């Protein structure tokens, strides 16, 4: 086969599979944003079967500000980073924490939200009796963090903790509670919620906003958040939008839009709409 024929076949083949994405440093006119669609109220499928939630509203707002036409799609959590890298979509907005490990492969905008972790348990359990605390503990402050962890540990001894696989929350649970409790990994948080309700597991670890939404449902009337909220350290630097490293123009545009959305109170408004709490990052 001549080289020209091969090139022609290759070209035909490529138009067949998909048009190569523009990756230059110029701002694209159209992008695809991927979310998970199973993490209420950040992103979820509503009762009409449509994507909805804080990040859906925020994505639409950021797209309007940057004048980019956006399509939002749902994608499995496990596949988000690899699929971003191979160009199945251009942006991840899926309550993903910004961490150094992830930044080895992809890039992030500045955080658009900071939301501490929370542990959900039955009210009647040892930890449930300790009750929730409004305290926020930075994991960088090792002394305070260790004291808080040590207070909770005995109550979790021999218990089963459910957490979503591939998340920083999993890394957090393994690091701080892995020596006393059994950690069970789930594909989505909705699945560990079902198992918590069924009594197969004793605790779940998610973000405070997510836990509040879960426990607002009637079947979780006997459940409560327990202990303080944790931020920073292994949990990363807040929640941001993930992008490919080479898409620098897109990142700059999104950062600017996030700045504006923080400054004019849009993030605060959306946050109160969805979470009844303010998750606006403090600069």
């Amino acid at each position, binding site marked *: 086969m001549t080289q020209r024929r091969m*090139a022609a076949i290759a070209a035909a083949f490529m138009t067949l599979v998909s048009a190569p994405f523009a990756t230059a440093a110029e701002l694209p006119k159209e992008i695809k944003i991927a979310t998970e*669609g199973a993490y209420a109220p950040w992103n979820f499928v509503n009762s009409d079967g449509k994507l909805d939630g804080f990040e859906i509203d925020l994505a639409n707002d950021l797209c309007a500000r940057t004048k980019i036409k956006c399509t939002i799609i749902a994608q*499995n959590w496990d*596949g988000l980073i690899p699929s971003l*890298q191979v160009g*199945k979509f251009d942006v991840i907005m899926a309550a993903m924490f910004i961490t150094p490990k992830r930044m080895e492969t992809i890039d992030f905008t500045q955080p658009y939200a900071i939301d501490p972790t929370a542990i959900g348990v039955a009210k009647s359990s040892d930890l449930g009796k300790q009750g929730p605390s409004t305290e926020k503990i930075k994991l960088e402050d090792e002394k305070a963090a260790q004291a808080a962890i040590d207070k909770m540990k005995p109550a979790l001894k021999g218990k089963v903790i459910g957490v979503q696989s591939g998340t920083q929350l999993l890394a957090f649970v393994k690091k701080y509670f892995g020596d006393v409790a059994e950690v069970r990994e789930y*594909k989505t948080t*909705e699945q560990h919620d*079902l198992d918590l309700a069924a009594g197969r597991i004793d605790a779940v670890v998610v973000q405070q906003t997510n836990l509040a939404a879960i426990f607002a449902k009637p079947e979780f009337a006997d459940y409560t958040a327990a202990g303080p909220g944790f931020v920073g350290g292994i949990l990363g630097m807040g929640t941001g939008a993930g992008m490919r490293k080479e898409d620098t123009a897109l990142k700059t545009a999104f950062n600017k839009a996030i700045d504006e959305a923080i400054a004019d109170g849009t993030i605060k408004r959306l946050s109160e709409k969805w979470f009844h709490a303010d998750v606006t990052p403090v600069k």
Partner: protein
Amino acid sequence: MFEKIHLLGFGAGGWGALLLEAAGITLLLSALGFAVGAVFGGVAAAGKLSSSKVSRVIASTYGTVFRGVPDLLSIYLFYYGGSVALTSIARLFGATGFVGLPTLATGVVTIGFISGAYQSEVYRGAYLAVDKGQFDAAKALALTRIQMLRLVIVPQLLRHAIPGLGNVWQLVLKDSALISVIGLVELMRQAQIGAGSTREPFLFYLAAAALYYTIAAVTDLFFSRAEANASRGIVHR
């Protein structure tokens, strides 16, 4: 549980339409995957019957591997590995940027690859089941090789292949549920979404099971008809 049955209805807050649409995607995914598998299977069967040792080894390795490893593992290979491979192939030809297959296409190719491994066995068996005298007769009539295959061998081969293909089809239909793990909203995935959203997993998985069962039963009928049709005038001994 049954007081919640309206969740499966077609009115406001009912998931009936979404589930039916997803069942359509399942049918589409399976049919396309089966068709792609026919191509892979045909080529692999030819490889297995070929006189070249290299072809035989390649074809039988393909069959052994994709019939032997869990289909879920093959799906992960195509899902995570497929785009990476396509992108590097495209780069070989001087393209820049990324090449990705849409989720449906990834599912179709994956199912095609797996079912091709099974179909190759069916075609090989069917070819060997064609009476040797038919080849001699075709030669005696001075048919060319192509004419012989098209007019004499393939029609008979298909008759022998239909029952086996029916089994592979049922396998494909059930395998298509696994494609839910890569995020394609087919029947299984839609049931999961519904179960998560309404917290009624039993109802939604039961509905999904009923839909799969219906599709399997109806398509099975189709294959039996085809089998009866293809064996018209054949004397069973």
